[in-house]
């Protein structure tokens, strides 16, 4: 597997993509723990606009990276490239989920089990930054990206299947989504180059399908963005579109990048405020399960797939997979989102959100593990 083509300077990437949500969450934590009632009043009134409308742009932007990766030489350009990371992702998702559901009755807070999709997801952007920090230009970087994209796709499917967000209306969901996809397909077939029809018509129908169908509408652009015509080659994961890019997908990214970043900041602000009094031992369950079970699940998933003829790329072995698994345990953005999508407001959600925030401790854990196992930069 080839290393990604020009990647953004890492610290530029960190500033562009990684500071906004933590900044919003930090402000939220300070606010809720000093003036809680005003925080809840402000954020409850904003939660629909931020979580169900503004975040459409963020997930659309993330989906742009995935869609672009299907171009020739992109990470997702051939299905064979995806299979082994998919196997690892299934293991990394399944093992913590099964353990969490098995342990939930003994947690003394059984209601937490309603947030089980939280354990499935990984923060792709945060994880990408960390894996690049540890491994540099190592084949495991692309492997990690593929695995986390697959894991998050599994999480989205699980969230949809659980009907967590409310009363499911399959009739409205399927009917409207079919209309959304049909519109996007028609625009594509007729060579529509402006992204606006895809976003407004296709995205609007998709949003309605998810909202009225009882699922989280923030994912509205996820099924639509792949229809946007894109450049013939993938410039690389998280590589910004050139300002003079002409293809529809990159024009979309140029338009939505800054609003998506603003959405990320607001998401951190609206959802990151968790009263410190929820710091009870139960909040550690999800992070600790992630730290332990994701690396094991990832390794087991790969180990079960290799005998089927799938080949692990050179320079990727069990130590590298263990560190990648620890990085994948960082749920953060994705975990926060899944928590709010799984469970309505209240103390149970507060506990899940605190758990989501605490998964960021997977970062120092991964660094320590990388040093101990002498992988990546620590191996020289």
């Amino acid at each position, binding site marked *: 597997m080839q290393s990604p083509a020009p990647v953004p300077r890492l610290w530029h990437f960190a500033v562009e993509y990684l500071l906004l949500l933590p900044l919003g969450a930090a402000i939220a934590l300070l606010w809720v723990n000093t003036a*809680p*009632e005003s925080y*809840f*009043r402000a954020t*409850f009134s904003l939660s629909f606009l931020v979580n169900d409308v503004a975040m459409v742009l963020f997930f659309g932007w993330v989906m742009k990276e995935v869609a672009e990766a299907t171009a020739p030489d992109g990470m997702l350009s051939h299905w064979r490239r995806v299979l082994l990371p998919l196997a690892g992702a299934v293991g990394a998702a399944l093992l913590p989920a099964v353990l969490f559901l098995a342990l939930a*009755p*003994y947690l*003394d*807070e*059984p*209601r937490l089990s*309603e947030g089980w999709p939280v354990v499935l997801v990984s923060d792709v952007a945060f994880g990408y930054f960390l894996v690049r920090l540890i491994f540099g230009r190592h084949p495991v970087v692309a492997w990690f990206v593929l695995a986390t994209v697959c894991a998050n796709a599994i999480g989205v499917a699980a969230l949809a299947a659980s009907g967590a967000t*409310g*009363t499911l209306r399959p009739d409205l969901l399927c009917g409207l989504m079919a209309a959304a996809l049909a519109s996007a397909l028609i625009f594509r077939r007729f060579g529509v180059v402006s992204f606006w029809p895809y976003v407004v018509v296709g995205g609007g129908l998709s949003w309605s399908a998810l909202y009225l169908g009882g699922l989280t509408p923030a994912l509205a652009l996820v099924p639509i963005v792949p229809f946007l015509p894109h450049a013939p080659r993938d410039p690389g994961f998280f590589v910004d579109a050139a300002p003079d890019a002409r293809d529809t997908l990159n024009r979309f990214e140029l338009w939505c990048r800054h609003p998506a970043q603003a959405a990320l900041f607001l998401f951190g602000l609206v959802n990151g405020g968790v*009263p410190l*009094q929820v710091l009870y031992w139960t909040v550690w369950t999800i992070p600790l399960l992630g730290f332990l079970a994701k690396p094991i699940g990832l390794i087991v998933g790969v180990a079960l797939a290799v005998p089927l003829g799938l080949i692990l790329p050179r320079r990727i072995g069990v130590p590298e997979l263990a560190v990648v698994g620890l990085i994948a345990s960082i749920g953060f953005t994705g975990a926060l989102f899944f928590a709010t999508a799984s*469970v*309505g*407001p*209240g*103390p*149970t*959600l*507060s506990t899940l959100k605190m758990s989501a925030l605490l998964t960021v401790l997977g970062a120092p854990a991964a660094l320590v593990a990388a040093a101990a196992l002498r992988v990546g930069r620590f191996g020289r």
Partner: protein
Amino acid sequence: MTRIAITVILLGMLTALPGARTVLLPNGTGSLKLAVIGDNGTGDPPQLETASQMVAMHRQFPFGLVLMMGDNFYGSQKPADLERKFARPYRGLLELGVVFRAALGNHDDISTIRYAPIGMDGRRYYSHAHGNVRFFVLDTNVLDADQLTWADAAMQQATEDWRIAYFPHPLYGNAGRHGSNLDVRVLLEPLLLKHGIQVVLSGHDHVYERLTPQKGIHYFVVGSGGQLRRGDLRRADTTAAGFDQDRAFMLAEIAGDDFHFQTVARDGTTVDSGRIRRFPNRLTTAR
């Protein structure tokens, strides 16, 4: 000598009984008589003793209804546990035909909504009425949009004079461990005010506390039916009465425009009592 012996024996019998019990409620005919417990499901001796005290009080004050504030069961909740933590302690009341209607606490497994003796009928949130009293039982662990919509409609449709809500997480409270749940307050208080709810009962904190009326609503925390956090109450200006030294339960009688209450400790002593008079709430339409 014989007279002294008889007096001593009688005194001994009185003290051997579960505490000196005095019912301070009107105990009239035609009124709704009920008891309130919360955070009771431990299965341990203090819960059983508190339950015995309830049976003893029932002999004088025959309440027909028990409201449970949640955390009806702690720890393992297999069928044998439900028997040990509920059916056995409250067998005396169950055999007398007392009906239990529970709310779901954060320690309760969701499957317990189907445990028939606690009267949830498979629902996380529901309402029930007795004469001119309507109770709204909410699941404050997860205040999803469907529940809030249901509550708004149910409260709007209520025609009873008394509207009482109960749920585990107190909107107002001064216990050290949890206290006021502000996220729940921001979501629920507007609804309660809009629909003229007069009394709110909660648990979650393992103390007893009666709050001063907040925006016209009377709040009680009744969370020491089995669990107890001794000394956890941080009395404040909003504390009208409190008790955190032993388990306790509340008796109540609703007659006409009056809500009488009496809170009884495990040993039978009264730790709080009073009366709330119902006034038509100016925030509601005429009823």
